[in-house]
């Protein structure tokens, strides 16, 4: 008898899965995300509502921006490099951004660094990052045809290399200069600067329009270079544009919350599973929604259930690491 019941449940679930179109799933995810956001804003309010809403509101905006940045950057990167395991963070792009920032402080000195207009500073940093990252990407993905594991290994070691150089530079800075650097490196979720938020919102709106206009190109890019070229997409031009978008997103999220290695990998792979479609029309919003649910929901859990006993990044690093090992060992790429 129980077997029959289990079978009937199984059949009804598969039937339900078939009936759930990607649009339906997207709607469900959006409702979930909205619920999580509402819980985040309203749970356990002890201070006055006005204070709580502004305080949590700013934090929420940071969360939303980061969710957008990391998920779309990872998704685009995976479509571009035509696989589902490499992410910009694993390939060392975050460390590269920190290296750019550290060398800027090192070369200019803290006086000139702080005197620079913060928007100008941001533009300089992002342009250096874009140039460096496009060379790295061109060299690793376009010129050479490395096998996947070697590619990841090179990326990981590159990350360690960049990280070590910035560590050395940080050691060489004197304490005042280091504190200036630290302020710009480790803006936390609670205390993101308003200027940075404005820059991010402007940049992200531009990128959002770009994504909306070009989402069908990514569907074709994900088929690989020969197929994409055959279908009439200028692969190298598109690659260049995508690299600019990806590095800008990485720069933004790293500036907002520092490097998070495995978050993008986790979110995008969850999105692949629950999305039920390979079209970027659905994949992009779905991965953003997944990121929001994980990030905001994770913070709610951490704050109200676990009492801030640990940091979200530690847990993400742990789960992401295990997930990554399983992914490469089973090669579900």
């Amino acid at each position, binding site marked *: 008898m129980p077997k029959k019941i289990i079978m009937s449940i199984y059949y009804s679930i598969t039937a339900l899965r078939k009936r759930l179109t990607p649009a339906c799933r997207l709607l469900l995810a959006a409702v979930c995300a909205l619920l999580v956001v509402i819980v985040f804003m309203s749970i356990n309010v002890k201070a006055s509502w006005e204070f709580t809403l502004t305080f949590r509101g700013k934090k929420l905006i940071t969360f939303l921006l980061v969710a957008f940045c990391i998920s779309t950057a990872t998704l685009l990167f995976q479509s571009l490099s035509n696989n589902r395991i490499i992410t910009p963070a694993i390939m060392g792009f975050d460390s590269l951004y920190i290296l750019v920032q550290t060398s800027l402080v090192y070369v200019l000195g803290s006086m000139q660094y702080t005197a620079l207009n913060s928007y100008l500073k941001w533009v300089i940093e992002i342009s250096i990052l874009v140039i460096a990252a496009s060379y790295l990407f061109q060299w690793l993905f376009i010129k*050479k045809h*490395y*096998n996947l*594991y*070697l590619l*990841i*290994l*090179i990326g*990981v*070691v*590159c990350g*360690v*290399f960049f*990280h*070590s*150089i910035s*560590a*050395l530079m940080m*050691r*060489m800075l004197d304490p005042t200069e280091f504190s200036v650097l630290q302020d710009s490196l480790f803006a936390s979720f609670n205390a993101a600067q308003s200027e940075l938020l404005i820059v991010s919102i402007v940049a992200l709106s531009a990128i959002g329009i770009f994504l909306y206009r070009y989402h069908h190109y990514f569907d074709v890019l994900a088929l690989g270079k020969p197929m994409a070229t055959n279908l009439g997409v200028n692969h190298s031009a598109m690659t260049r544009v995508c690299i600019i978008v990806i590095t800008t997103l990485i720069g933004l999220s790293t500036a907002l919350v520092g490097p998070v*290695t495995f978050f993008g990998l986790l979110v995008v792979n969850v999105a692949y599973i629950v999305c039920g479609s390979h079209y970027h029309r659905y994949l992009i919003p779905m991965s953003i929604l997944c990121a929001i649910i994980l990030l905001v929901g994770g913070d709610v859990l951490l704050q109200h259930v676990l009492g801030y*006993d*640990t*940091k979200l990044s*530690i*847990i993400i*690093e*742990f789960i992401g*690491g*295990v997930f*990554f*090992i399983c992914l*490469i*060992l089973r*090669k579900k790429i």
Partner: protein
Amino acid sequence: MFRIFLPLSLLLALLSISSILIGSHALHFDAKSLDIILISRVPRTLALILTGISLSVAGVIMQQLARNKFVEPSTTGTVESATLGMLVMLIFFPAASVFYKLLVACISAVIGTALFLLILRRVPLRSGFLVPLVGIMYAGVLGAIITFIAYKYDLLQSIWVWIQGDFSMVLRGRYELLWLAAGLSFIAYFSADKLTLAGLGKQVSINLGLNYSVVFVWGLIIVSLITGVTVVNSGVIPFLGLVVPNIVSLLVGDNLRRSLPLIAMSGALLVLFCDILARTINFPYEIPIATVMGIIGSFIFLFLLLRRAS
């Protein structure tokens, strides 16, 4: 062999002398300088040489056991496991003597490394590059567990300071355990032939008359003990055990009886060189040797990877 060894020993002597002479206190012919040399400079130089020898030997043994050129204790979770053991002792038995801390660190290093090698055996490996990749991620996961526990008990800073390879605190009476690690490397030399055979794989080595499991466990214990001792004493020096054996193997091949002395010597040379660099680059301040070694090591690692690829 002699032709390689003579210049290397001269170089080692030269670097050791400069390591003794370099420091923020200028040396004169008086009692105070003698004290500084005997209490601080000579122990530091010895600690560097011993660490260099034992870590590079541990690296090459690890490479034989995992049958992969791109692994070493810090990319197989051995270092992280030792740190985890250390951390557990710091939390639960902070008053325990160094010996017990060391013992627990070594035992946990054995368990962690064995687990990694078990994972490697269970999964079919499609590519040689998969082994170090899984190792680095495994180390990362262990690192996350360490951070999690340390954060909970407010030990994050002390554990970071502890495991970062740094020789500035070495004084007479605080480095002598490293002799144990170097002694283990010396003992490993007597089983060099067996370890070379074990590197050919289980089937081949059993066919050649080797008791594979015994040699395997033996190698595992040596690697874990060396790692435990160096982590507890001087911290992590990344990529040392990877870079040195690979370069030596490019020069003289993979027969450990021939290459092991050379590996030990080059390891000592590299560590001495990096530490002198770390002491002079921002004189009179010091930079931890781990930072310098991180740059040099990852650069050479990249070079080796790209060389293998082409």
